[in-house]
């Protein structure tokens, strides 16, 4: 079996000097907490047909069988069958399922974190209908409990849980946000006691794409709807989600939830950030323990709704032939397929779709925290080759997406491959082409 166990063992979460036995016990405890009827059914339903491999860009790029999606949960399938399945005593008695070992888990860190974006393409191809990506997310929870979350993700998650932002910065994000408003000449409503919409921002945008932050504020201002950012609930990303720390994910989500409640928001707007959308839209209420008293909407779908309602008017963008990368968490796993296309159509964009688009789009390769894992870069670039080929094949002059992490991944690849395709933000394009609706200034 190929892999990088040596690299893996050097990349454990800090403060995790555990014995191998304690590590395995932690993983098994973490996974046992996850096993409900649904995940057990998913594990039992696998017929080892291997078709999920053909949905995964890591396998397609490398033809390395270890990247077969269902194989990425093998230790946990093994543990489930041995410990909790209907005939677990029989499996143990006949030795059909061996005990999971610490070495096995250490190797699987590479498979569960470096080589999986949790993009869900495998879940779409499985003839048994198994949501493999959901199983991988649960396996990440177990790895976190075993102290096997990659260091980069673990540290950012710990910092975000503690302080609200994933990294210490000389200039806190709150101050950076205010500075962005000044730089781009746009009002940044901050800590308003009440607002219809609460906005948050991707850390990626604050650090790398300040124009996207300004675009978000500009569009909301244009729509003349009351909105606010909140100092104590500013960052959209959830590194707890990436690292597999379920309780940390809950704590990080709760920060935003409590701020939205505090300002009596009707809608929490998730900016262009795919996984932040998944964490808040499809998982936050479960972790919070009750339905959220407000709606969660992606900025893309919110703007498309405003467009449909006639409150948002857009002019021709004039960007020539354009192609669009569908962020997995928003489109395949989130169902936001039509909204970006409606916005592009309203701007008169000549959209040339990628060969694999919509729900079938290939991930950018950076999702699921992979972009943050330094050692994963070579593998990520291999998956990117196929994606960039698809982009080139469209003949597009402009390349858009609606997720800042995807954009950052493409930016990084552009440098690595010396590509001429610069990814741009759909939100920024919308902000650049606003037309005053009737009765509005």
């Amino acid at each position, binding site marked *: 079996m190929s892999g990088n166990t040596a690299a893996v063992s050097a990349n454990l979460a800090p403060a995790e000097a555990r014995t191998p036995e304690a590590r395995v016990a932690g993983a098994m405890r973490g996974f046992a907490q996850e096993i409900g009827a*649904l995940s057990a059914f998913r594990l*039992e339903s696998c017929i080892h047909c*291997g078709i999920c491999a053909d949905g995964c860009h890591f396998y397609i790029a490398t033809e390395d069988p270890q990247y077969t999606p269902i194989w990425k949960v093998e230790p946990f399938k093994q543990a489930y069958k041995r410990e909790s399945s209907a005939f677990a005593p029989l499996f143990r008695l006949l030795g059909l399922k061996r005990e999971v070992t610490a070495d096995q888990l250490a190797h699987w860190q590479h498979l569960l974190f470096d080589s999986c974006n949790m993009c869900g393409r495998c879940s779409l191809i499985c003839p048994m209908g*198994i949501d493999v990506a959901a199983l991988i997310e649960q396996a990440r929870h177990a790895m976190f409990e075993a102290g096997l979350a990659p260091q980069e993700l673990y540290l950012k998650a710990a910092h975000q849980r503690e302080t609200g932002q994933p990294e210490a910065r000389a200039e806190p994000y709150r101050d950076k946000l205010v500075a962005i408003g000044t730089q781009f000449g746009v009002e940044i409503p901050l800590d308003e006691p009440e607002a219809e919409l609460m906005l948050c921002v991707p850390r990626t945008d604050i650090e790398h794409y300040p124009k996207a932050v300004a675009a978000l504020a500009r569009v909301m201002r244009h729509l003349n709807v009351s909105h606010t950012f909140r100092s104590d609930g500013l960052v959209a990303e959830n590194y707890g989600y990436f690292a597999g720390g379920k309780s940390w994910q809950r704590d990080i989500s709760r920060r935003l939830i409590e701020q939205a409640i505090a300002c009596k928001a009707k809608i929490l707007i998730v900016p262009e950030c795919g996984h932040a959308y998944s964490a808040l839209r499809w*998982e936050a209420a479960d972790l919070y323990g009750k*339905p959220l008293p407000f709606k969660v909407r992606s900025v893309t779908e919110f703007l498309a709704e405003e467009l449909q309602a006639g409150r948002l008017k857009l002019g021709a963008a004039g960007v020539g032939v354009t192609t669009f990368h569908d962020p997995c968490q928003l489109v395949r796993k989130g169902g936001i397929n039509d909204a970006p296309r409606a916005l592009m159509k309203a701007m008169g964009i000549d959209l040339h779709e990628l060969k694999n688009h919509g729900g079938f789009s290939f991930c950018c390769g950076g999702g699921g925290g992979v972009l943050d894992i330094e050692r994963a870069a070579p593998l990520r670039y291999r998956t990117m080759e196929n994606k960039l080929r698809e982009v080139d094949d469209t003949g597009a002059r402009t390349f858009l997406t609606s997720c800042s992490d995807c954009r950052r991944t493409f930016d990084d690849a552009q440098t690595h491959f010396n590509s001429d395709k610069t990814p741009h933000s759909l939100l920024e394009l919308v902000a650049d082409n606003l037309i005053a609706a009737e009765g509005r200034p």
Partner: protein
Amino acid sequence: MDLLSFARGAGLKFALAVFCVGVVWRIVAFALLRIRRDLNEPRASMLKSLGGGLLAVGTRSWPHPEFIGRTGAGEALGYSYHLGLFAVVLLFGPHITFFGSLFGLTWPALPSSVITVISVLTFTLFLAVLFRRVTHPVLRMLSNFDDYFSWFITMLVIVTGLAATAHIGGPYETLLGLHILSFDALLVWFPFGKLMHAFYIFPSRAINGSLLARKGAIS
């Protein structure tokens, strides 16, 4: 008691009992685990979600066009031998008589010559399936005892059935006894291994399809 009498008498009764209890236990075991309620606001109504689930039962039967180039051949092989097995099991005259004795229900059969052709084809496809499993790097890596034993026991039923029909390898009664005995063995193994997918496949597709439809996502 001769082999045939045992196979179709006590042996069959035992096998059916193991099959029924085992299958029910495998399904009940899920119900003993907790079922979490999804508290997140759905995008689609419950009716649409259920509809999406039902739709997925059909749409997952064949790969989406985006995937077919990579998976079409493997899936065609898989479905072909399944169809062959269904035809032989359900449309061969003596099998229908057997089911009639169990359930009191019979239906028209295919001519024996057609069944023979289908059986030989199914046998060949089954060999191809094994060849693919041991030569394809992904399948070889994923495969375990369950995969090979389930293949072996199903193949045993096919081979003994072909031998009994063609009267090759011994007296007809002995061959028929071995055929029914191998079927008994398959029934006993059924609840313990991957053959259970016969019960899981449609609910699994429906559940995933329904959960994706709840989010407004394609399935």
